[in-house]
């Protein structure tokens, strides 16, 4: 009980949180990829899709942005097993349920950024591309998407940063990621201040790493007129 913070850190906290960190990454990375994929598809459909598809994707976005994420997480983990279609019901383990919940929620937000990026490209540029003899597909591929992507990147990156933080919600459906592990350690050791302050540092480090990667990507794609806005 009377070991110093550093002894506690070295002997219990870091080894304990290491597993949690790994589990967090196992949740965050697939969720972010799923969210980006859904975001791009839904974003493109919301701008270029036929009207019924546009309606449908808009419904998806309102639903997932309009309900608390905790509720969505509970739904996929606790409620889904009770929904049976033709006698079959789907039971998800805690980690896949979290990835599904985070991916779907993140995708709804991502699609907003993608849609904004697509809409920011003036129709005139598409017209100019077509006037040169490009097909619509070539115009979208070589004119619209590269620009929309650059415009959407800062927003999409922010969304990934939120995702890192809300991945801690997975702990409430028994996933032993960073927050879940830390809670257990705190309960057993009664050293709440040390545990939760250290946990904060872990998230800060993850977010800093993600921010740095994001900036690398932005710089790599930066051209005049599409620079990163440094604050």
């Amino acid at each position, binding site marked *: 009980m009377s070991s110093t913070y550093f002894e506690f850190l070295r002997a219990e906290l870091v080894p304990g949180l290491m597993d949690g960190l790994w589990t967090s990454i196992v949740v965050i990375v697939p969720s972010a990829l799923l969210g980006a994929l859904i975001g791009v598809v839904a974003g493109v459909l919301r701008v270029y899709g036929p009207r019924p598809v546009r309606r449908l994707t808009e419904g998806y976005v309102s639903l997932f942005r309009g309900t608390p994420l905790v509720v969505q997480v509970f739904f996929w983990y606790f409620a889904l097993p009770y929904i049976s279609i033709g006698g079959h019901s789907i039971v998800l383990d805690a980690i896949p349920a979290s990835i599904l919940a985070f991916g779907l929620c993140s995708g709804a937000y991502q699609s907003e950024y993608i849609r904004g990026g697509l809409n920011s490209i003036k129709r005139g540029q598409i*017209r*100019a591309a*077509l006037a*040169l003899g490009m097909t619509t597909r070539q115009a979208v591929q070589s004119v619209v998407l*590269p620009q929309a992507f650059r415009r959407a990147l800062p927003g999409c990156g922010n969304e990934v940063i939120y995702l890192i933080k809300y991945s801690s919600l997975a702990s409430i459906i028994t996933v032993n990621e960073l927050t879940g592990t830390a809670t257990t350690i705190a309960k057993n050791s009664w050293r709440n201040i040390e545990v939760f302050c250290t946990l904060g540092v872990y998230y800060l480090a993850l977010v800093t790493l993600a921010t740095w990667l994001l900036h690398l990507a932005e710089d790599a794609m930066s051209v*005049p*007129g599409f620079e990163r806005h440094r604050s």
Partner: protein
Amino acid sequence: MSAENQTPPVLEARALGKTLGGNRVLDAVSLSLPKGCVKVLIGPSGAGKSTLLQCLNFLIPPDSGTILLEGREVNGKSRRELCTLRQNVGMIFQDFNLFDHLSALENVRVALMKVKGMSKLDAGELALAELARVGLQDKAALYPASLSGGQKQRVAIARALAMDPKVMLLDEPTSALDPELIGEVLAVIRDLAQNGMTMIVATHQISFSASLADEFLFMEKGRVIESGSPAELLRRDSGSRTLAFCAKISELSGEGGEAEVLAPECRV
């Protein structure tokens, strides 16, 4: 005369009609562009000039009428024919429409690679030559955000010329430019005309176009209501709608005064 009868016009439109949002924006408009001729489209705002130009390369598909490229009717439903038409018909827009994420060189190069299937190296060489033609070889590496309006429009012209078009459509190429930048773009256009490029230009630059045009087409409410040589239509006693319109806009813009606008000897 006889030579003109033998070779079909480079581009011809017959009875184009277009209704947009319930408005009859084009009403049976016909025009023909023989090789090497320059026609100028004038008329009040909303007359349908932009719509007409964009119908000529199916950016706006006309509701009725036909387009003929060198005497052959173009089927607007065939993607291949559209692509051929558009490669042969260069278009210049009022607001330049450069691709913002590409440098001047890449702007000119991209369609050469994607549409003409040229190698990056060949396309780059040709693009540089086209930029040199409009006096911008030293700006090849700059992005649109770093170019002036006049330079942007000249890149846009180089981009269109690189496709080696048989005819150019220019929709108010200088309207979005500051007065001091208009000259450099007009010089490029004059150069094109003098080198025999077939062109149709919508513009409000009356004195400039009078010095260049073989024919003025005056449009109003979706129809071409007057056409003729600038000297004819702008003769002081012609009593034409064109004259009244030109007098009004040169008054408004203070463009060189009436005397210069109306002097027939302005014509080349």
